[in-house]
């Protein structure tokens, strides 16, 4: 039973990323879509850590949770907020 705990956490992180991806693509308010994409990146960062790749975690967290949502919010503020 103790040997299964990291694998159960991996499965939970992967399912959480599916939910966050679906909500990000469906959403019409683009600021909420950027926040859901940051949530999905957090789930992927947990998955990278459990797959024993600490170098990738240190690159992925500033890039996908820090730079991408910030640049997207800059862009949305200067263009349109609602899609369609």
């Amino acid at each position: 039973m103790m040997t299964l705990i990291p694998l159960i956490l991996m499965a939970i992180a992967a399912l959480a990323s599916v939910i966050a991806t679906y909500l990000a693509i469906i959403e019409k308010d683009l600021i909420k879509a950027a926040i859901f994409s940051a949530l999905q990146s957090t789930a992927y960062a947990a998955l990278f850590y459990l797959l024993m790749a600490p170098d990738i975690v240190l690159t992925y967290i500033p890039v996908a949770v820090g730079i991408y949502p910030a640049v997207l919010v800059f862009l949305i503020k200067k263009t349109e907020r609602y899609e369609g």
Partner: protein
Amino acid sequence: MVKILGISPESYLMTIVLVSLFVNIVISIYGILARPSLIKKIIALTILSDSANVLAIYVGFRRAVWYPKPPVVTKLKPSPEDIVEFTKYAVDPLPQALVLTAIVIGLAVTLFLVFLTLQIYRLYGTTDVRRIAKLRG
């Protein structure tokens, strides 16, 4: 490994991760093709490239030991027996190096796309591809 109904729980949980990665790829390709806003297309493109990177790291994982370790030597003066022990537990380091390069290149392409979208909005006043397709010149 204990088997319940002929399936071991380790392989079942790893298969859940693999199938959900493929489902993420399918949803993000739908998002690139079917949504009309340029910014939504950029968001879906970043999700697609991230899912491909996780797939590459997943292929390099090590299944038969509990629990594998990252590919870092932890003793400052190792002997040959320490290195043999290290290679029994360490994960594959080559996909991690390739994924580092892939993350940086994806970042460069996405930042350039953001600047292009900003300039399109300043010149034409819209970021909707259906309305841009109707302009002529």
